[in-house]
């Protein structure tokens, strides 16, 4: 315990007590989250660059929405989203996760749809009944909008907030971050047997880094005088949250300027240790390796909002399940997409600048593989956490000051779920 100001002091409404385990293991709670939260909010589904031309499409099967959604770029260049369900006797209209199409066609009876979802082709159309009107039988639209090149969908036909209104209070200041310059994307995915909130929690605090990542990247974050890995600062909004993290510039992984500046030396070069030599050479080989000159990119001031000299990256959790971590030289975008109360599809993507040199690619591969291995360390905890929660041995979790984001998530989700359940109860009472 210390006398210094605590992050929690700024957010008295979030409380300071223990957190109940129930919401992480209860199937009924998950059903309420689906109904009152996931089906009523904006969800990130990908980048605009994934749909490079007219007719490019992607399909997202999203259990939290009980839906398969097609997101496609139409002939005018607009991006639209609709349900992957034929208007005739159902079946689907898109069958691959990614593709390019001139039209969408159902494999059952051959109904054909334009890229904007309108129905354009019905075999043997005159056999349908009087009043049959193709204009009314397009694919069911899903609300879709774009923020800084990220595509979001919302199951509400008339969302309570526009995407801009949803993002602005916490992330308006991030606009101008060079997301569009980082177009070399690597991704991995897995289904973990863990609640989506447990999964996200493992990524929104730094308390675990010294221990869980003790062998790997713990050294690349900055420690305070007491040797502790505390975040620089944290912000909790109505639903979103942010953490600011300091790095150790003497490490390759914690060096935010690598590959984007002429800097080639680090304190690890010349080491007798082969592992450190490879790391140092990766950093040196990567210098100046990017296709685009990123040295003059001006980052938005809201990124390192405390102006900490050793700031390395921000963790931004775009409510509910989108983790966006921004660094000067790359960003990570993770979705923690729930499948059930104890299953989560974890989709991790990292976006780097494209490289023009072999050394640049070697540096990038080194960074990417290091990140993947760190994620394997994180992932290993999740199923054990869930198994432990399922035993019921503990009904509460204990939270420290720097685990504020874990608390914020639990409190915000619960506020929304409770409000939804109360509205349901009121509606039922009125009947």
């Amino acid at each position, binding site marked *: 315990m210390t006398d210094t100001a605590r992050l929690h002091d700024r957010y008295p409404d979030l409380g300071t007590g223990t957190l109940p385990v129930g919401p992480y293991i209860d199937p009924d709670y998950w059903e309420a989250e689906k109904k009152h939260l996931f089906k009523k909010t904006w969800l990130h589904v990908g980048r605009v660059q994934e749909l490079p031309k007219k007719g490019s499409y992607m399909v997202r099967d999203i259990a939290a929405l009980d839906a398969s959604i097609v997101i496609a770029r139409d002939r005018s260049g607009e991006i639209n989203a609709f349900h992957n369900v034929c208007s005739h006797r159902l079946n689907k209209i898109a069958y691959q996760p990614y593709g390019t199409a001139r039209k969408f066609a159902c494999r059952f009876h051959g109904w054909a749809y334009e890229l904007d979802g309108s129905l354009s082709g019905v075999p043997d159309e005159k056999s349908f009944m009087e009043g049959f009107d193709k204009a009314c039988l397009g694919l069911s639209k899903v609300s879709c909008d774009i923020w800084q090149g990220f595509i979001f969908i919302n199951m509400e036909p008339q969302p309570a907030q526009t995407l801009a209104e949803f993002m602005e209070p916490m992330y308006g200041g991030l606009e101008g971050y060079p997301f569009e310059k980082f177009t070399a994307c690597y991704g991995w995915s897995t289904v973990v047997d863990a609640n989506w909130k447990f999964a996200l929690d493992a990524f929104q605090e730094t308390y675990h880094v010294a221990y869980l990542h003790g062998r790997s990247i713990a050294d690349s974050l900055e420690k305070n005088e007491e040797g502790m890995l505390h975040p620089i600062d944290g912000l909790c909004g109505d639903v979103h949250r942010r953490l600011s993290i300091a790095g150790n510039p003497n490490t390759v992984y914690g060096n935010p300027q690598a590959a984007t500046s002429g800097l080639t030396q680090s304190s690890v070069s010349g080491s007798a240790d082969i592992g450190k030599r490879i790391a140092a050479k990766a950093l040196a080989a990567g210098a100046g390796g990017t296709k685009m000159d990123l040295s003059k990119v001006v980052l938005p001031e809201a990124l390192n909002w405390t102006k900490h000299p050793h700031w390395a990256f921000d963790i931004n959790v775009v409510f509910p399940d989108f983790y966006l971590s921004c660094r000067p030289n790359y960003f990570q975008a993770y979705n923690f997409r729930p499948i059930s109360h104890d299953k989560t599809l974890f989709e991790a993507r990292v976006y780097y600048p494209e490289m023009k040199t072999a050394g640049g690619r*070697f540096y990038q591969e080194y960074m990417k593989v290091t990140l993947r291995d760190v994620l394997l360390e994180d992932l290993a905890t999740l199923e054990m956490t869930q198994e432990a929660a399922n035993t019921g041995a503990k009904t509460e979790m204990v939270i420290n000051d720097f685990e504020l984001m874990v608390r914020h998530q639990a409190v915000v989700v619960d506020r929304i779920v409770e409000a939804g359940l109360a509205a349901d109860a009121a509606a039922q009472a009125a009947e």
Partner: protein
Amino acid sequence: MTELPNKFAELSVWGAWCLATETERNACRVASSFEDISAFAQALEPHIEAICAHIDAAQAEGDLDQPTLNLFHMLMSLAEVAPAIESYDPEVEVVHGYDSKLFVADERHPLRPAL
């Protein structure tokens, strides 16, 4: 044996590491012994600069032939084994880690670099 550019012929003994995808390279790493990956890294590390220079020159001439591509893939394998050597010695896999075979690399993502 996997063909490499002439001046890197001595590295041909490590030809099994000329693998085009992250998935293959990781599978090779976790199926190897720590001694194997260390020997591979020790052999390749002194050549990193020359390998990069050779690939860049070939690319500048628009002549990325198969031996050069093999060399590039070997360099990518060095990056693959680096974390094991740096962080997980004497293990080849992530210590207490999630099974990497379950954490599937999306090799077909539209924005994944071809090289």
